[in-house]
């Protein structure tokens, strides 16, 4: 009884301590450190808004949002991969390959008719499935042959890049008109096109999946300490395969969104997109060593690149300087992020 009352007092005391405790600056930085990207984004928007008021118009928003829907699904998948401590260099090539395969299938199915809703749906299914299969191939090579993700996805980047042209050297224009209608559908008084909404919906859905679901927690755990994850009973290899499947399937989805908006499937689609996707994730505060990052950061990173690109066009800076600027921003964003972290670790 005496023992029990002691432990009760202890419990109450420690509970009181917890309640009365102010979050330390460490915890604050850890929790809100990713807000740094939000701040930079706000700053960049403000600066370009002041330089050219067009950015704040519907046309400005349209230009920005249109240049994000292609990268967002790629960057979401890339975030999952990078959180596990891996990297996927093949997402752009997967995008191109899956949309060309899907385009070829749709072209065959259509024959001479102008289109059908069924074929549109089939096109999406094929695109996403082919993307997922490419991701599966990556995952299997990485986990079964125990090759570094960098090497495997570099190889699939080349292989799929070639395979895309084997499937179709020319753009395919014969795709269902419903797909094109969807891809160019403007909604909410012209403020959004359908692909942008789909991409944003993906951010929300996968953001919740990452932060509130078992799959997300285990994704962080594997990147944070793979051995600990294995000892906790997680089938790490199987989980990694699923992560690469997810990245591939999202690349397939991105391919369909691009095809829909451009009213064609082209072997050129997705070229170099992996760089933008990785840049967005890294600017968003994710660590390439795994275990750290989130989709809010990735969303901001993607929009940051888009606003920079559009903003620099608006203030009439040439295309080459745009790329220089993005390079500078990557270095700045990541170094400040690391500075903040080193403060929070102290």
């Amino acid at each position, binding site marked *: 009884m005496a023992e029990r009352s002691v432990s009760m007092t202890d419990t109450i005391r420690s509970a009181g301590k917890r309640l009365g405790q102010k979050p330390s600056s460490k*915890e604050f930085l850890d929790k809100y450190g990713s807000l740094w990207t939000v701040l930079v984004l706000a700053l960049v928007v403000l600066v370009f808004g002041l330089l050219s008021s067009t950015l704040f118009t519907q046309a400005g928003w349209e230009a920005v949002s249109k240049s994000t829907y292609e990268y967002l699904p790629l960057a979401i998948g890339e975030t999952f991969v990078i959180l596990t401590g891996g990297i996927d260099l093949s997402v752009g090539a997967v995008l191109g390959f899956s949309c060309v395969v899907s385009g070829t299938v749709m072209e065959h199915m259509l024959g001479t008719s102008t289109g059908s809703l069924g074929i549109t749906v089939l096109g999406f299914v094929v695109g996403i499935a082919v993307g997922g299969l490419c991701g599966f191939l990556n995952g299997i090579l990485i986990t079964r042959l125990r090759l570094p993700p960098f090497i495997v996805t570099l190889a699939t980047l080349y292989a799929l890049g070639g395979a895309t042209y084997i499937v179709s050297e020319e753009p395919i224009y014969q795709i269902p008109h419903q797909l094109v209608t969807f891809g160019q559908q403007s909604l909410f008084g012209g403020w959004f096109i359908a692909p942008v909404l789909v991409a944003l919906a993906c951010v929300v859905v996968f953001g919740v999946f990452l932060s509130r679901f078992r799959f997300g*927690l285990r994704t962080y755990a594997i990147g*944070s300490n793979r051995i600990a994850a294995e*000892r906790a009973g*997680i089938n790490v290899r199987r989980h990694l395969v699923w992560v690469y499947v997810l990245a591939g399937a999202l690349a397939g989805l991105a391919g369909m969104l691009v095809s829909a908006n451009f009213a064609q499937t082209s072997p050129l689609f997705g070229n170099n997109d992996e760089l933008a996707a990785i840049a967005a994730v890294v600017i968003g505060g994710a660590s390439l060593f795994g*275990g750290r990052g989130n989709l809010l950061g990735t969303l901001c990173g993607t929009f940051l690149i888009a606003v920079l690109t559009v903003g620099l066009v608006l203030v009439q800076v040439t295309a080459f300087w745009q790329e220089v600027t993005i390079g500078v921003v990557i270095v700045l964003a990541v170094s400040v992020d690391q500075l903040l972290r080193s403060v929070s670790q102290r």
Partner: protein
Amino acid sequence: MAATVQAEEGKSASQGKTPLLAARQITKHYGSVQALRGVDLELYPGEIVGLVGDNGAGKSTLVNILSGALQPSGGTILVDGDEVSLNSSIEARNRGIETVYQDLALAPDLSVWANIFLGRETTRKGFLGWLGWLDRKAMSTDTERSLDRTRIRIGSVQSKAGQLSGGQRQAIAVGRAVAWGSKVILMDEPTAALGVEQQQRVVELIRTVSKGGLPVLLVTHNLPQVHSLCDRVLVLFQGQLIAELFPAQCSVEEIVSWITGAALTRSTNGG
């Protein structure tokens, strides 16, 4: 032989009870190297048993076998008197055997509660739960409760493991083992990386755990700690258990002489 005599005394102390965990004639060889040569071991409720031996004596091999990470070449393991085969660490955990690893096996980027529940997450009810929707609140509350029970204080269970001090991390690793372990806790060098004060806190933690009825098998090089903390000490020498010592009746020097094999030579020559 002296060792045999002491082993007999040990058995008499716990006569009539079924050991929670027992190993019988465990052998393990790697190719031609014989790491364990027929080891017997029993753990009874609430006792703290030290497992000591020189480097290469087979301590880690034995702990890895008991925790399911390694499969023995021969011999049997009994949990609660029933013969079991521990083919993986998950299987061992399902049988109530928890291990605190030397490297702690914590994910630094995950919160305290996530580390405690990793691999055994609580999900919500219904379809979303089936998809893996985490019940974060339940896991936080359970973590607070079980850490309170072992009197571990780490501030908030929301803090990330990587931000805590070495002692606090150690406490979480032990707390996790206690929270899930229903039969036995195995600890591999739990205080090796800690400062003196933090070591003391972990020692207190081990005492609290054993008072709760769980036996603790403690592998360590820290002999004064073994001497002051353990009820029994098992000495491994070249893959064999050569002595069972009772710290209440022997000195640290005596333990050392068994570890180095000096006492063995003496007793063989004497007998």
